[in-house]
């Protein structure tokens, strides 16, 4: 299992650090570059999927790519316990907590709202499909402005290879994982998060101040 993690990790890091694919329209980064958050409060994702673990898997798997992008990521479990102690249990309720209150308690620069649209396995007659669909929105806690948002869809069917270099690569990796892992959706969510929060593409999140690449995003050159 550890080997698999190493493989997944090194590959996602490659995806992450590769600035080759530039095929999307350039995102409007004006608010992002004006506010430059140092820290991100990732709150419990809202979950539209049928699997209750869609939220926790997505939250746990967001830590690595966001940290490597150069942000301080607040400890998700403690953050969640803090909400619970204040009587806020549901991800939907967390979305209604005022930005002012979040800033006051956590001292964060920004909050990341993730919605899990799809998470899990659909079993069709002939093949099973692991499908992850995520949308993320980064909101500045000082100005209230949306700094960045993005969606990612990642599908792993038995015996297919997705489109493009990243899709092909990711499929190869997941195929290896699937042979090892009993929790396919959790492993697929690792990859989906690494795609959603990769850097150096035209709609990618910008580097944060802990990254040696801070202010050196390829898409801004």
């Amino acid at each position, binding site marked *: 299992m550890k080997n698999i993690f190493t493989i997944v990790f090194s*590959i996602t890091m490659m995806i992450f*650090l590769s600035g*080759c694919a530039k095929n999307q329209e350039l995102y409007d980064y004006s608010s992002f570059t004006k506010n430059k958050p140092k820290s991100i409060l990732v709150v419990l994702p809202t979950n539209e999927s049928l699997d209750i673990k869609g939220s926790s898997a997505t*939250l746990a798997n967001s830590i690595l790519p966001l940290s490597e992008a150069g942000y301080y990521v607040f*400890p*998700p479990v403690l953050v969640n*316990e803090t909400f619970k102690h204040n009587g806020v249990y549901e991800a939907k309720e967390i979305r209604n907590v005022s930005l002012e209150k979040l800033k006051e308690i956590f001292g964060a620069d920004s909050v990341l709202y993730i919605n899990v649209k799809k998470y899990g396995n659909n079993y069709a007659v002939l093949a099973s499909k692991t499908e992850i669909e995520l949308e993320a929105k980064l909101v500045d806690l000082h100005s209230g402005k949306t700094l960045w948002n993005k969606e990612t869809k990642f599908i792993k069917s038995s015996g297919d290879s997705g489109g493009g270099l990243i899709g092909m*690569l990711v499929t190869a990796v997941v195929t290896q994982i699937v042979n090892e892992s009993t929790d396919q959706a959790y492993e697929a969510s690792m990859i989906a998060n690494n795609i959603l929060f990769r850097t150096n593409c035209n709609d990618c999140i910008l580097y944060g101040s802990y990254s040696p690449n801070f202010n050196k995003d390829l898409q801004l050159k």
Partner: protein
Amino acid sequence: MKYFINTFILGSLVVLLTACGSNANQTIYHWDKAYIDSVYESLNEEGDINTQISNLEKIIQDSYTNKKKIAPGLYAQLGLLYSKIGNNSKSIMNLDKEMEMFPESKQYISFLKNKGVK
């Protein structure tokens, strides 16, 4: 055959990315899946806390060995786990480490220490 194809894809990717001048091994932090799993299990209120504690302690040791920084939130997560088994001194110690490494957490960690983590 599948293995061959995977190897081929990986190999060609490495070549391709090298051509783009990417630097695939330069991570900022030391990563271990056990940290991610600990967060996942805690959120689901599953898993054995003592096992998670020893996993995280081992990651901290490995980070020193590899001369890599500890990832954001790891010390805080360890602090939480210690508080759950009633080891308050180790809990506070790890929360302080989080603050020391990441000043961005200072306001929140101070809030936690005043309120009690649990």
